[in-house]
């Protein structure tokens, strides 16, 4: 029984944990950058510091957690086993960490060589992950919307990485490319077809499992990923053939699909069977709320560009979508996945003779909720800072850095408690011998 609970090919607890603890530290760095640079950073999405901040959040936090988590959960959610998950984690983690630091540094300083190094590191890491995960996933049959969605998400990740790499090189070498259009496409593929499709594919499993809600309808699950990638293909074709109406159609369809997913998840949350609001519920509640506003704003700004020409709107959308939605939804999942993995490994180490401590002991809910309240305060300041950048950008950056630092601290303490229990188990068995 105990042996069956431990997945034979599952990497040790520290394999995904290194990604999970590094990610909030890089997000905290984004907060510190805002504290350092101040309100100028929020005046336009094209500000070099804003590009650095964006990538500390998207690559440093989101991609870091997503890839670390996939190494761990592919066998569980898709039945796809990676060949050497620990080796992959050991190689990928430094490539991503140094890659995003070089990228943020390159954006902020305009240093050509840093951008080139970043491109090399991040593309190598991406390729390494895509090759291992792709091989594992393509040998797994698409028996559920989750598996089908994961496959499409990986394809979208490769498009996002290629576009991102090309953009970084174009910027480094001053190539005369249509940078704004390519940047929008890169963001569309990365946030729509990769992040949202991946999030949905994982949500089909973890929302009912961890929040005790009903399931997502099977049909919407099967259609979501193909529809989102079709929207991105329309948008891309529109850019390639210089057809603005097609670009607009693609963008609006992608935002509309995101909105449908958000609304569906909000509806499921109202049907949940757990009365007590825990951290995952709170983070998902605030995250879905931000997502709803962000996507409604995207639809409106796209439809009425003349009425919404203020450069603060895209910045507000970015803040609502990145720290507001994705960081929140991912943090909520971390607060369930980390204690669950820790519990599973301890249970297996105890070989049925020693029971593992409950998940709540590894990562106490009160601490998680305290961090959520601080995060929410930081989010409110960030949103207000778009309207009053001179006054609020620095305090908002500081608050966000503290909230993310606290997340890293909470996860680090879970790792420490896990190690203490592991030591106790080892002592027990050495005494028994």
């Amino acid at each position, binding site marked *: 029984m105990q042996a069956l609970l431990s997945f034979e090919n599952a990497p040790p607890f520290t394999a995904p944990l290194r990604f999970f603890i590094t990610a909030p530290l890089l997000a905290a760095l984004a907060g510190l950058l805002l504290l350092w640079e101040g309100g100028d950073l929020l005046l336009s999405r094209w500000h070099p510091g804003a590009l650095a901040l964006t990538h500390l959040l998207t690559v440093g936090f989101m991609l870091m957690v997503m890839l670390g988590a996939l190494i761990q959960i592919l066998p569980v959610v898709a039945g796809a086993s990676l060949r050497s998950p620990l080796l992959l984690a050991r190689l990928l983690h430094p490539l991503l960490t140094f890659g995003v630091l070089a990228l943020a540094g390159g954006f902020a300083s305009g240093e050509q060589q840093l951008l080139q190094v970043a491109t090399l590191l991040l593309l190598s890491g991406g390729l390494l992950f895509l090759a291992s995960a792709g091989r594992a996933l393509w040998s797994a049959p698409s028996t559920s919307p989750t598996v089908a969605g994961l496959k499409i998400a990986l394809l979208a990740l490769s498009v996002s990485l290629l576009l991102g790499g090309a953009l970084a090189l174009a910027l480094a070498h001053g190539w005369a490319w249509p940078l704004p259009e390519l940047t929008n496409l890169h963001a569309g593929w990365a946030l729509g077809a990769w992040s949202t499709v991946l999030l949905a594919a994982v949500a089909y499993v973890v929302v*009912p*499992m961890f929040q005790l809600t009903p399931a997502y309808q099977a049909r919407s699950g099967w259609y979501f990923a193909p529809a989102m990638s079709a929207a991105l293909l329309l948008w891309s074709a529109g850019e390639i053939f210089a057809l603005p109406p097609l670009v607009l159609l693609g963008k609006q369809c992608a935002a509309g699909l995101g909105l449908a997913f958000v609304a569906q998840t909000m509806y499921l949350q109202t049907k949940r069977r757990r009365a007590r609001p825990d951290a995952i519920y709170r983070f998902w509640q605030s995250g879905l709320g931000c997502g709803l506003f962000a996507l409604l704003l995207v639809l409106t700004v796209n439809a009425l560009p003349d009425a919404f020409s203020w450069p603060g709107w895209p910045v507000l959308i970015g803040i609502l979508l990145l720290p507001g939605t994705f960081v929140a939804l991912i943090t909520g999942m971390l607060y369930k996945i980390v204690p669950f993995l820790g519990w599973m490994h301890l249970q297996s180490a105890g070989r049925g003779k020693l029971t593992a401590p409950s998940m709540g002991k590894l990562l106490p809910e009160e601490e998680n909720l305290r961090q959520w309240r601080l995060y929410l305060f930081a989010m409110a300041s960030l949103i207000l800072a778009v309207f009053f950048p001179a006054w609020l950008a620095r305090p908002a950056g500081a608050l966000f850095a503290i909230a993310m630092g606290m997340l890293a601290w909470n996860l680090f303490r879970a790792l420490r408690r896990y190690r203490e229990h592991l030591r106790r188990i080892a002592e027990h068995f050495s005494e028994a011998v």
Partner: protein
Amino acid sequence: MSMTHPKTPHVVDARYMEPPEPFVQTMEMLDTLKVGEKMLLLLFREPHPLYKALRQNGHAYETELLPDGTFEILITR
């Protein structure tokens, strides 16, 4: 949670259970069945770790995804 179903009287409805309850209850019910008897597990996800355990123990299973998102897993002891 025990109930009956057109496919078999032996049912574990694990749709609102947290892990590892569905796994534990399924393995426990399988132990009570005779060889060749079938049981049904209802779940809102595909239980890949359970599939692996079933294959290792030589149990056959068939999975059907219903429109409401329920996976029906029919397992033969």
